[in-house]
């Protein structure tokens, strides 16, 4: 694993975190003193990915823009790491005409065909779509790969299992990634999953499974590299589980009373400062480089927000368009 890569992974993580912090700020901006989910510049549910940056950064470093990825309801980190246009994505989140979905989708429904990115607010239901993308890639004779990312809660949804079986049976180029942040809203893994890790399920589909236990981006990078390579070589699917953390609430507004002690622990293991310290210590970065990376991220993110805010809202009647092609 080269030094450049580490800086690149760090940069991606900073970019994601900077984005999520900005969206957090914009989301709550017009929602105080009283939190009203439907109010403000960004209305609706908002699932942010702070703490899960290592998954997106480590995974997407191996993907090409022509590889497909289906993300879950918590999609921003994956979208950004896979190269979704930040401006148009932000405009979508702000519900603007210039958004990826011309304001029709919203934050759970980001589609960018340029990089074959999609997501869904329905748990685990992106997995079959990734299988289908992989089927198309195989039939088309390409070496493109499809990735399905879901949470550990989602791994108990039947459609996920069907997808694992299909991908294995048809030896498709799919990488299944489970972001195990320990929670499905308020339900801890122990109350949702009958095995210690979903990797225990890989054998049930005759596919390799690999667990990354420490939410380290290097660990994700290496495991994902093996999985993507297998897929690209036509050797079939892999199941990866990454033990990660949900730094914030399930969605914004979630008081998280159910979390107790674990919340402080999670916050203490924020992967971003940990990785930053590592790279500083290893001499791959110095304070100036860190500052520059952060500044660049802030600029890009604030530009994207400015772009969104300067874009027009869709005209109401446009609601009637795009039902059929």
């Amino acid at each position, binding site marked *: 694993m080269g030094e450049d890569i580490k800086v690149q992974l760090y940069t991606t993580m900073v970019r994601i975190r900077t984005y999520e912090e900005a969206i957090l700020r914009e989301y709550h901006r017009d929602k105080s003193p*009283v*939190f*009203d*989910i*439907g*109010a403000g510049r960004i*209305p*609706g*549910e908002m699932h942010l990915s702070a703490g899960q940056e290592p998954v997106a950064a480590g995974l997407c470093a191996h993907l090409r823009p022509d590889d497909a990825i289906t993300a879950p309801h918590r999609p921003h980190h994956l979208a950004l790491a896979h190269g979704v246009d930040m401006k148009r994505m932000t405009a*979508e989140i702000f*519900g*603007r005409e210039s*958004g990826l*979905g011309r*304001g*029709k*989708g*919203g934050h*759970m*429904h980001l589609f960018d065909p340029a990089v074959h990115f999609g997501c*869904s*607010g*329905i*748990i*685990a*239901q992106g997995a079959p779509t990734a299988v289908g993308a992989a089927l198309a890639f195989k039939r088309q004779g390409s070496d493109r790969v499809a990735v399905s990312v879901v949470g550990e*809660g*989602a791994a*108990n*949804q*039947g*459609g996920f299992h069907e997808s694992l079986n299909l991908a294995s049976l048809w030896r498709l180029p799919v990488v299944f990634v489970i972001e195990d942040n320990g929670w*499905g*809203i*308020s*339900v801890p893994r122990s*109350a*949702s*999953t009958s095995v210690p890790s979903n990797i225990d399920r890989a054998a049930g589909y005759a596919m390799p499974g690999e667990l990354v236990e420490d939410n380290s981006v290097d660990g994700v990078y290496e495991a994902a590299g093996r999985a993507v390579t297998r897929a690209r070589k036509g050797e079939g699917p892999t199941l990866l589980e990454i033990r990660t953390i949900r730094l914030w609430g399930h969605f914004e*507004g*979630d*008081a998280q*009373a*159910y979390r107790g002690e674990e919340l402080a622990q999670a916050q203490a293991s924020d992967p971003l400062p940990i990785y930053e310290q590592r790279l500083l210590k290893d001499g791959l970065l110095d304070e100036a480089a860190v500052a520059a990376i952060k500044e660049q991220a802030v600029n890009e993110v604030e530009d994207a927000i400015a772009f969104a805010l300067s874009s027009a*809202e*869709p*005209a*109401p*009647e*446009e*609601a*009637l368009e795009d*039902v059929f092609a």
Partner: protein
Amino acid sequence: MTVTDTTTNKPSSGVRRLTTARAMVEAIAQEMERDPSVFVMGEDVGAYGGIFGSTTGLLERFGSERVMDTPISETGFIGAGIGAAIEGMRPIVELMFVDFFGVCMDQIYNHMAKIHYESGGHVKVPMVLMAAVGGGYSDGAQHSQCLWGTFAHLPGMKVVVPSNPADAKGLMIAAIRDDNPVIYLFHKGVMGLPWMAKNSRAIGPVPEEPYELPIGKAAVVREGRDATVVTLSLSVHHTLDVADELAAQGIDVEVIDLRSLVPLDGETVLASVAKTGRLVVVDEDYRSFGLSGELAALIAEHDPGMLRAPLVRVAVPDVPIPYARPLERFVLPTPERIKSGIVSVVGR
């Protein structure tokens, strides 16, 4: 998003007022006290108290054996509800958003709703399946639907849709005691949640003792001569607001809150339309192949001449619910759309 205590208050009059969410919880709790076979199951119904507050406080009171958090396995746990109901329990199962019905519909419509019939009446499935419905807060195409027409089209389940706290309590108790499967759909906008734009009627007087509201009886919530508006759920409140406004302009609107789609109280609708000769259906579900059509057929089968003006439908115009606020407002049955619907039906 926890319902706080500000949602219960006793105004000086001494009448106790609850939010719809609290009224539902009270109904469930009273039935759980009365009948040990009643239990609650679903995603985040325990410590979280239900994403929309429908089970808040039940875990603390009844423990985790009777208030069970589930994995995200709707086919599994709704099916488990059916199996438990067949074996003598009375489960209340929550499907968090009705929009998720697609991952578990087979259990709902091919099993929950048909086993009694297929068994020639020998097996009963006394079960309540409750789910949140509705939009208006930019939750997008997969979290904003009503879909009651979908359930009402398929035989074997009752479909109950309360609009206010007192009805919510009485209909919940009736649903739990019913020996049949009952789909109980509560609109997020009538729950009185502290974190969502509140409707003024989402909090209201609720009797403390348990009581049943018969399933299948619509309520004439406003009498009027000039036009009948048949509606349900959150739209009842928008319609009542509009009716007040129009009264000032001399338009006298009768408003019917259906309260259930199955059974459908056709008599109450027909009696009203016989009087007014004009019908507006306000329906937050998709427009076509749904409630508004069924009401049109009810009238056309009875006497098409009853309608002295064309039917007006104020519904979601057969598009997925869009995210951005101006788009969503355009497709939902807002007070503005209801108003212009009524104005056009009375021809003034």
